[in-house]
């Protein structure tokens, strides 16, 4: 399990300082560890597309930014991704929790849990899965992809990954 403080310090080390999102129980520990650092901004968005909009504004202001959302909210960002982020080439890190992973979850998460990577593939959004020990390498990969393509990159977070 990745300690919540390490999660944020590795993001900050790569200059991610502006965040917005809608909470997920998978991120409870991570979000509890966040407010301690005055150099990091977190805007609690009212919906996932709003989070993407707010964080993208920060990107246009020259700040590296990320959103933290549950995969149930992926549908809310399909149009913002296709007709804004991907079209204008505005890079942003999409930290998306993976509810419904391997079919073990509440019924409302099962379909999206099964199809989430398919949706990302269809939209042409590259992604990596966070696992024990790969935080630094997936973040490096995400930053390299965002810098070279100027497009979003998704980091998928399973239950119990961050604590």
């Amino acid at each position, binding site marked *: 399990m990745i300690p919540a403080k390490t999660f944020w310090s590795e993001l900050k080390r790569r200059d991610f300082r*502006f965040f917005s999102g809608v909470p997920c129980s998978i991120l409870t520990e991570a979000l509890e560890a966040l407010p301690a650092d005055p150099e990091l901004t977190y*805007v609690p968005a009212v919906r996932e597309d709003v989070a993407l*909009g*707010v964080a*993208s*504004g920060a990107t246009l202001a020259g700040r590296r*930014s990320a959103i933290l959302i549950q995969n149930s909210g992926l549908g809310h960002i399909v*149009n913002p991704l296709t007709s804004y982020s991907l079209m204008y080439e505005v890079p942003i890190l999409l930290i998306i929790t993976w509810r419904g992973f391997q079919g073990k979850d509440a019924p409302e998460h099962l379909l999206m849990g099964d199809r989430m990577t398919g949706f990302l593939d269809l939209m042409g959004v590259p992604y990596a899965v966070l696992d024990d020990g790969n935080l630094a390498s997936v973040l490096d990969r995400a930053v390299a992809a965002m810098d070279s393509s100027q497009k979003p990159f998704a980091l998928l977070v399973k239950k119990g990954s961050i604590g």
Partner: protein
Amino acid sequence: MDRCDALRALLGALHVEDLALFTTGMISREAYGLRDRPENFYMMGSMGLLSSMGLGLALSLPGRRVVVVEGDGSALMSLGSLALIAQQSPPNFTHVVLDNEAYESTGNQPSISATIDLAAQASACGYRLVGRCLDLDSFTQLFAEHRASPGPSFLLAKVGGRASHGLARLDIAPPALKDRFRAAAGPGRASS
């Protein structure tokens, strides 16, 4: 008041360093035709996303005035963003809604803003300054006041006027437009 006249007045009242964001559809096309500048961002897709984007810009660039110009359809699509803007309360945020009570670019279908008062929504959310105007003189005066006052402010302008069909689409590729805006918003630029 005619929407084109209102946009012309707004564009003329902007300070050099102001960042102005225009919503998808006729408002972007009209602003682009009237007075294009690197500090303008035109949203071509993602209806409803503009105000949250303006919020992120305003929070990240406290020394720059951010002016979000959208229509009633776009504002109605993102009422939740009004709440978030008021809660975050960036003083450099100026929100203008040009309300023609219709979805003009898709054939002028009526929106619901004839009976739903968007200024009252902004006021209830807690915007610091809220104004309404029906004619060009009051719009020009109120916009100058809102532009110069601590925000977030919300200015509702009821507009009508001639149909704008035939307005040219933007001929800048989206990534080039974004790069130009990002350079204009970036560090090293003048701040007020």
